[in-house]
């Protein structure tokens, strides 16, 4: 007699496939399950943070304590942290004339009370590198080191090289940052007289601008610089975003400008939250 394969009742599989499809539809169209997912993420990240800072780090430092090097190490760490903080706080100044279109704008920004110098230094908690290299959702999680931010949502995030993204979720003090390259993100940019909303491409370090040749007939050059336009009020104005890498024809009248970002978010562990004026 022939053996029947076990657990192949079509009814139960059809039921669960339909149920999964229904859940998938709800989450894909309405993000119905974003709350439980965020709760899970928050608890995992908090546990991770607690384990690293209060269990793993003291354990690692224990032999060093025995050797009476604690103070030296602490001093060294504090100094390094201070240098990195300075880099971020003064990242505007660390770039020369190249950073801003002209010197006067730089001076105005530095002299102004509500300038980019007002940043809350934050530490990287988790970078979703798998999604960053494979998929469309580019995000990282940060936590302020000392100061807290009163209204963190939509605040711009910088590292010592420039703008990297904006906060989209506040998960009890841990902030989810959507990077400029996320496909759901758009950055208002300009170059000379051309303004557009550059969409994230889902590829690391690439954003794109689509425009109609019927409206804009001037040519772009490879390497041409794009700056943040400040439209929308999220990102500060006149910050170098990137250079033109390529120009593609999409249709008879539409073209796509591929912009290579100046900033690489995976190089540093410290970030600055630009506090809104």
């Amino acid at each position, binding site marked *: 007699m022939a*053996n029947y394969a076990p*657990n*192949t009742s*079509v009814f139960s599989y059809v039921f669960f496939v339909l149920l*999964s499809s229904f859940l*998938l539809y709800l989450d*894909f169209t309405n993000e119905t399950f974003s709350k439980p997912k965020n709760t899970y993420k928050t608890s995992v990240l908090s546990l991770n943070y607690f384990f690293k800072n209060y269990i793993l780090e003291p354990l690692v430092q224990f032999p060093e304590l025995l050797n009476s090097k604690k103070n030296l190490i602490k001093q060294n760490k504090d100094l390094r942290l201070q240098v990195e903080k300075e880099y971020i706080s003064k990242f505007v100044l660390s770039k020369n004339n190249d950073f801003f279109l002209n010197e006067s704008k730089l001076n105005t920004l530095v002299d102004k009370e509500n300038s980019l110098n007002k940043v809350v230094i934050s530490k990287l908690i988790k970078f979703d590198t798998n*999604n960053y*290299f494979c*998929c469309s959702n580019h995000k990282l999680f940060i936590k302020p080191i000392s100061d807290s931010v009163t209204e963190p949502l939509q605040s711009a995030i910088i590292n010592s090289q420039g703008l990297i993204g904006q906060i989209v979720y506040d998960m009890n003090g841990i902030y989810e940052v959507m990077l400029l390259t996320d496909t759901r993100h758009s950055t208002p940019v300009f170059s000379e007289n051309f303004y557009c909303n550059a969409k994230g491409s889902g590829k690391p370090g690439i954003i794109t601008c689509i425009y109609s040749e019927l409206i804009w007939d001037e040519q772009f050059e490879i390497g041409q610089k794009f700056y943040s336009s400040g439209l929308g009020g999220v990102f500060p104005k006149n910050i170098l975003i990137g250079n033109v890498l390529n120009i593609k024809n999409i249709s008879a009248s539409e073209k796509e400008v591929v912009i290579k970002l100046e900033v690489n978010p995976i190089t540093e562990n410290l970030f600055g939250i630009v506090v809104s004026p």
Partner: protein
Amino acid sequence: MLKILFLIVLAYNIEVFINPIFNNVNIIIPFSFLTYSYFAYKDKNGFTASSSFSIGLLMDLVSGSYIGLNGLIYCMTTYIINSYKYVFRLFSYLQISIFFGIIASTYVALTHLFLNINNFSYLTLLITLIGNTIFSFLISIARVYKPIIFKRRGL
């Protein structure tokens, strides 16, 4: 079952670290999915639809993808694996590896339809198919040719 869950989550964490490296050569190896498929294939009676759905939901939560995506794919995969349970006995290691390569690349294709539609690439899928087949074959070969010392210890 807890051991299987632990190993699948562990495989997912390995995947998170390793896949960014493989991405440079357009290969995506879904370790967590392959681990699940291996256990579904290895289980004497095969996984039930409810258990595959539950494991899928857990993976959705862990990986942060859309709820139901892994549940759906795991259910379909389990049904296919269970249906071919006795047919696999007639297959060679290479044929089974090709089967796992195909289902792994189907998994990548389906997840990319939802998570990476803007950069959907058939080239990546083709290389992933070849990469996963070779990976599965190497694993099966390693099992056959593992050092005698392990065999004696019953590992």
